[in-house]
């Protein structure tokens, strides 16, 4: 369509040609109604689009459209519901028997069987395949054989996975984990067709899955066109004709294209536009909770921060932070002050409790000053909050947190920001235990379980326990909770563990992050799921 206005104008006078492009933009989005195409902003995923290799939201968007796993998290409540799983049975929270529903196929016609899952999981876990999310299979027996701490894998498959028949397989875990089936909605647990293994390069260039969409075309670094798969066997069929994901170099340019009518959906409203967003979009702006919490981690490997009275010091610092003011002014209410160490998307039944942190997370300058003094004062007289300066505009809030602390303590040298140039370097300093003061720690949940907010972050030597906090009572309660087969009792035990974390102020919770999105008036029924990914298949084109 737009090809017609092509180059013939180009060499001419600038003004004439500038006018010629006025008809451009948005005209490739086709018709409306049930077959209408939704155009959406995208960032090029940095990793190949393999399910067990995607750990960021841009690749996650695609996987959410082209894959369905055993479980699926309800886009509204976040609850794990059976998708391809007919039943998942266990008697001892260690051995699971999984039955796959009949009638599911991949979009290339191949049947989804028990083997599709077992092969995919074995691939994801194997060290040879360099999968970023391999640790998700870490609880399955035999993982240490295919993914040893060092050296070459000693086996090709995990001994804990066994195919019984076409639709049944068994899983044996290394220890009790009663809520393990609830984790199976994560993309890493998706089934894979034979084409993935037989012709891997072709699959990467154009992935094939079993979700409501199929990949129509994929131009790396530019765009991906997804079409509705009409023969999709699931209940959650796509309500539109397809989705075109367009790569933008910058979220500001995507936002201007939205306001200019060239784009239907932006799922990352830039911080600089939050002030205008009400005027620009009105009720087409979405701001809903996501399973992300920001905290300040404390370097417990540094003796100055690991003193007997440290809990008072840390609680004092927590009480010196005026969370409400920062979330209202700097984040324009796209963050909510944290009141525990989980996320509101879990819901009360799932373990979120907005009274858990209580006074320790409320702004109280007088009390803060007293507690910090009793805790021995700020180590070294000045604390430096480290953050990476390249992405995510962390500078603003770190400076605001420091201002708040300085004002509360009446000492303008108590806290300063410490920017680290690049994210790679920042992570490097964290893993090499080089932090000399509190540092920014963000956590985006993998699955909506209270376990996911506590165990990976605060259990002794857990994979993302960057501050190296350790507490025997906490560990013990987590173990008990994982072994508990009654979900409500398990949640209660997790909350007791969280109270232990609070009493020692193991990490200072700051705020829960919301997902923000804006859409054009061409589309409706736009929502974000608890992972802050748009629920694409429910979007209707007017």
């Amino acid at each position, binding site marked *: 369509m737009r090809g017609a206005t092509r180059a013939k104008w180009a060499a001419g006078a600038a003004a004439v040609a500038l006018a010629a492009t006025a008809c451009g*933009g948005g005209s490739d989005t086709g018709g409306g109604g049930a077959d209408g195409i939704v155009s959406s902003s995208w960032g090029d995923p940095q990793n190949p689009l393999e399910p067990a290799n995607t750990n960021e939201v841009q690749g996650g968007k695609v996987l959410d459209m082209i894959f369905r796993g055993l479980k699926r998290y309800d886009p509204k409540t976040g609850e794990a519901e059976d998708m391809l799983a007919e039943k998942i049975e266990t008697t001892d929270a260690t051995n699971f028997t999984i039955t796959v529903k009949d009638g599911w196929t991949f979009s290339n016609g191949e049947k989804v069987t028990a083997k599709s899952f077992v092969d995919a999981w074995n691939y994801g876990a194997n060290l040879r395949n360099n999968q970023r999310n391999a640790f998700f299979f870490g609880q399955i027996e035999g993982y240490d054989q295919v993914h040893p701490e060092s050296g070459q894998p000693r086996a090709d498959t995990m001994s804990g996975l066994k195919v019984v028949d076409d639709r049944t397989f068994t899983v044996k875990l290394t220890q009790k984990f009663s809520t393990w089936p609830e984790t199976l909605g994560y993309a890493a647990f998706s089934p894979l067709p034979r084409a993935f293994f037989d012709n891997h390069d072709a699959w990467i260039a154009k992935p094939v899955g079993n979700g409501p969409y199929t990949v129509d075309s994929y131009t790396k670094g530019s765009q991906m066109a997804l079409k509705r798969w009409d023969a999709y066997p699931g209940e959650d069929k796509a309500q539109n004709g397809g989705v075109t994901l*367009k790569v933008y170099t910058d979220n500001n340019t995507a936002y201007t294209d939205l306001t200019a009518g060239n784009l239907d959906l932006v799922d990352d409203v830039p911080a600089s536009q939050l002030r205008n967003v009400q005027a620009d979009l009105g009720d087409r702006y979405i701001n809903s909770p996501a399973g992300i919490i920001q905290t300040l981690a404390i370097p417990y490997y540094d003796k100055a921060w690991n003193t007997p009275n440290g809990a008072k010091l840390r609680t004092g610092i927590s009480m010196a932070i005026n969370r409400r003011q920062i979330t209202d002014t700097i984040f324009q209410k796209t963050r909510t002050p944290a009141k525990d160490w989980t996320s509101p998307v879990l819901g009360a039944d799932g373990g979120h409790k907005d009274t858990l942190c209580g006074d320790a997370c409320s702004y109280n300058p007088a009390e803060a000053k007293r507690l910090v003094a009793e805790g021995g004062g700020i180590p070294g007289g000045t604390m430096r909050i480290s953050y990476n300066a390249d992405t995510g505009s962390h500078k603003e809030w770190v400076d605001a947190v420091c201002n708040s602390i300085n004002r509360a303590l009446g000492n303008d040298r108590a806290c300063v920001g410490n920017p680290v140039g690049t994210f790679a370097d920042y992570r490097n300093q964290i893993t090499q235990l080089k932090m000399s003061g509190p540092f920014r720690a963000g956590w985006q949940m993998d699955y909506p379980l209270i376990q996911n907010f506590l165990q990976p972050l605060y259990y002794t030597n857990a994979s993302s326990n960057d501050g190296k906090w350790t507490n025997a009572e906490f560990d013990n309660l987590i173990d008990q909770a994982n072994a508990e087969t009654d979900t409500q009792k398990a949640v209660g035990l997790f909350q007791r563990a969280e109270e232990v974390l609070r009493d020692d102020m193991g990490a200072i919770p700051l705020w829960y992050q919301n997902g923000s999105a804006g859409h054009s008036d061409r589309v409706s029924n736009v929502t974000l799921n608890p992972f802050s990914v748009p629920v694409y298949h429910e979007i209707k084109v007017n």
Partner: protein
Amino acid sequence: MGRYVVRRLLQMIPVFIGTTLLIFLMVYSLPGDPVAGLFGDKAANPATVAKIRHDLGLDLPILQQYWNYMSGIVLHFDFGNQIASGRPVTDVLGDAFPVTLQLAALAFAFELIFGIGLGVIAGLRAGRLADNAILIFTLLIISVPVFVLGFIIKMVFAFELGWIAPNVSNDQLLSEMIAPAVVLGGLSLAYVARLTRTSMAENLRADYMRTAVAKGLPRRRVIGVHLMRNSMIPVVTFLGTDIGALMGGAVVTEGIFNVKGVGGIIYESIIRREGTTLVGLVTVLVLVYLVTSLLIDLLYAVLDPRIRYA
């Protein structure tokens, strides 16, 4: 002339090796581990990190890495693979360079035509109204930062007048490239106009000009051949280096107009510590610079008959 060119081409070899080695060392001495950065906020699995580093040869001594990299480029035209995506760097460059080439060509044409045009007008009327107007106009362009100019053009032509689409679409049409090209070429346009003006105004008083006029040559020939040709030397020098700068991409302009060219790739590669991509890009740019500077030196001899290369 032939011997001169051969000598220059041979000189390129040590320059090429030296610059690429320097850049290689600089990139690899940046702090942080690119592989660990792939895991996001989550802790990296040490076994997977070790495996990826081994697969990419990042665990070898730095000079051996450099040797492998350069021999890959020279012998197989293989620039290595990206760390995160595993894509061949040649693919990445193949996507970005045509876009940048398009943008650079447009910007270059813009600054060449309008820059020299304005410079000639100002130079011939030095000290008069047109000259002063052009000097003020170019001063204005020089003093306004690129991103301000970009946003002004976007505001006025895209949002207020609605003549252009605010961003370059994924089709990267040539017509959509005009606005970013004007922004990109704007600054150089001012420099070209000023260089041309000064050089022309000065050469107007040269002896050979008086001779040409005294010989009774028509004014068009005096200005078009005798004056213009000799006045172009500083301008050509500037334009030559500017080609290199334009090819190196423009991070800010590309960002404002959503152009997926070399500038964005360079920026992203630095942030993500994609060493192979960065060195590959820079290697190509070094070649561009070397070739253009040779061409400019040869052009001098064409423009000024007094310059001879033995």
